[in-house]
């Protein structure tokens, strides 16, 4: 069961997140899927990792491979955790599928010292082009489902997400966009270019209000 996994291609956002996370830290991966990120973080960063996943089959598969995962979802189950329970609360390619992205992000910022969020960028030029030229909801490699079966209830652009961070008073520690071939876009490029060329983005955030208000975290 704990046999080393064969060579597999890690998702580029997972590799970036693994780079952001400090060795031996406490990590919650919300929407952890098959546990690939948790496994990567356990193997490379020796983290104390936990996962939440909505699919019962995937939860059971994760636990069978030795990961600490519970069945649940971002909208309902984050409220249970105490403030600052984790060093990193991660939401990878999941926020667009939540019912209340703002509330979920607030919870992430509350329970993690850092929140790390990755999401598909609805401002990507292919998405814009599809909508502009076909007049229909874009179906791309990155967003493969038709609108009527898509789990994505709240798609946003990089600019939109950036704006939500401002609304919540979250400080963006790091923001990286990937193009369609999985390459990071240069950080010197303006936000507008990221918003056009980035297919996915990863944001690392902290909550500033706690410091501003002198709130001591437990």
């Amino acid at each position: 069961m704990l046999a080393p996994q064969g060579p597999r291609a890690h998702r580029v956002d997972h590799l970036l997140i693994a780079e952001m996370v400090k060795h031996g830290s406490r990590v919650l991966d919300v929407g952890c899927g098959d546990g690939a990120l948790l496994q990567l973080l356990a193997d490379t960063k020796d983290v104390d990792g936990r996962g939440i996943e909505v699919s019962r089959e995937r939860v059971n598969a994760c636990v069978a491979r030795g990961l600490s995962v519970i069945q649940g979802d971002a909208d309902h189950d984050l409220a249970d955790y105490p403030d600052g329970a984790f060093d990193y609360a991660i939401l990878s390619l999941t926020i667009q599928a939540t019912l209340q992205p703002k509330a979920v992000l607030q919870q992430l910022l509350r329970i993690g010292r850092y929140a790390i969020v990755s999401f598909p960028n609805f401002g990507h030029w292919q998405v814009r082009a599809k909508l502009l030229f076909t007049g229909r909801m874009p179906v791309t490699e990155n967003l493969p489902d038709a609108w009527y079966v898509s789990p994505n209830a709240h798609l946003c652009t990089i600019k939109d997400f950036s704006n939500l961070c401002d609304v919540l008073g979250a400080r963006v520690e790091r923001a990286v966009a990937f193009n369609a071939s999985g390459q990071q876009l240069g950080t010197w490029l303006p936000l507008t270019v990221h918003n056009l060329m980035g297919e996915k983005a990863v944001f690392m955030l902290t909550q500033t209000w706690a410091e501003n208000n002198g709130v001591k975290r437990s």
Partner: protein
Amino acid sequence: MAPTRDFLTPDVRTQEVNRPSSDYLDVRTPLRLDSGRTLNAYRIAYKTYGALNADKSNAILVTHALTGDQYVASHHPVTGKPGWWETLVGPGKPIDTDRFFVICPNVLGGCMGSTGPASINPDTDKPWGLDFPVITVGDMVNAQVPLIDHFGIDQLFCAIGGSMGGMQVLAWAARHRHRVFSAVPIATAAWHSSQNIAFHEVGRQAVMADPEWSQGRYLELGKEPRNGLAVARMAAHITYLSEEALQRKFGRNLQNLAAKSFSFNADFQVESYLRHQGSTFVDRFDANSYLYITRAIDYFDLAAEHGDVLANAFKDTKTRFCVVSFTSDWLYPTRESREIVQALNAVAANVSFVEIDSDKGHDAFLLEEPEMFATISGFINAGAARRGLKPARSG
């Protein structure tokens, strides 16, 4: 009916109560009970499997359910049947006795050698009967502590059990948190629901309504409330299954009959099955033990012991948990397991939670459930790696 019938004699049972064929530990340190009463001395009968390693870090405590016993992976001395969890415990099994030292005690209040109402009260030289103090799940756990001490074990690698066994696991994790590295409560709850208390009460009333019960003094009078206890078991057994499983197994099939008999015989297969469950149970279990243990379960409420906040029971816990429930278990439904998980999340404990898809009802935890085996194996192996225990043999 069963070929093992000839050794299901009251003599064998009485012998197991007072001189168990398993190992046992006589504890002389008084046990202060939750009721306020004290048990001056008591015996815990137990079975062990596998070997304790040099640093005593590979012990797994298996706690049994209401009518279980210490014979988790070996033949039952009264019924001759295989151990009740041989699917899970044994060489190469998810709880691998080639790697782990497994301890399974009979609970305090039981009737397979641990002190209970059928045991002889040293003060009177008669069976305790209703003079036995009412006990709790917490008392059962406290009574097991000297056994763990006896082996020189500081910290159990794992405590695992289903149903009332799961309650004992939770009580271990709450009362003796530093002594439990990992905990697997299966098909259980942090408190016994009103409906479940109601079922228990039906069972107890059935026992007590049997004239043979004789106010609990049947043993000294040479009587046995067989009918009452059998009815109690029949009613309880329904709660261990599911409507779906009953329908799949028996439907409306008649038992060895071409047509209905227009009588109150066991026309239907399901009736015959339940009667069999009732009568075989009576052959191996003590009626007063049934009263005491069901009562202990009724009283179980881990939140109430901690200011009505379940999370307080696990505050600052370092124990790794794996909570397991079954979709068709209506005795301890998934939402009650989820409540345990929420309390553990509230203290940021390390917790896994799996719900196993099964139509076999509460009893699923005792049956062949490959997904349960896979998740328990994964959890135990990951914990063993953290604890620095040797990995499973390859292959």
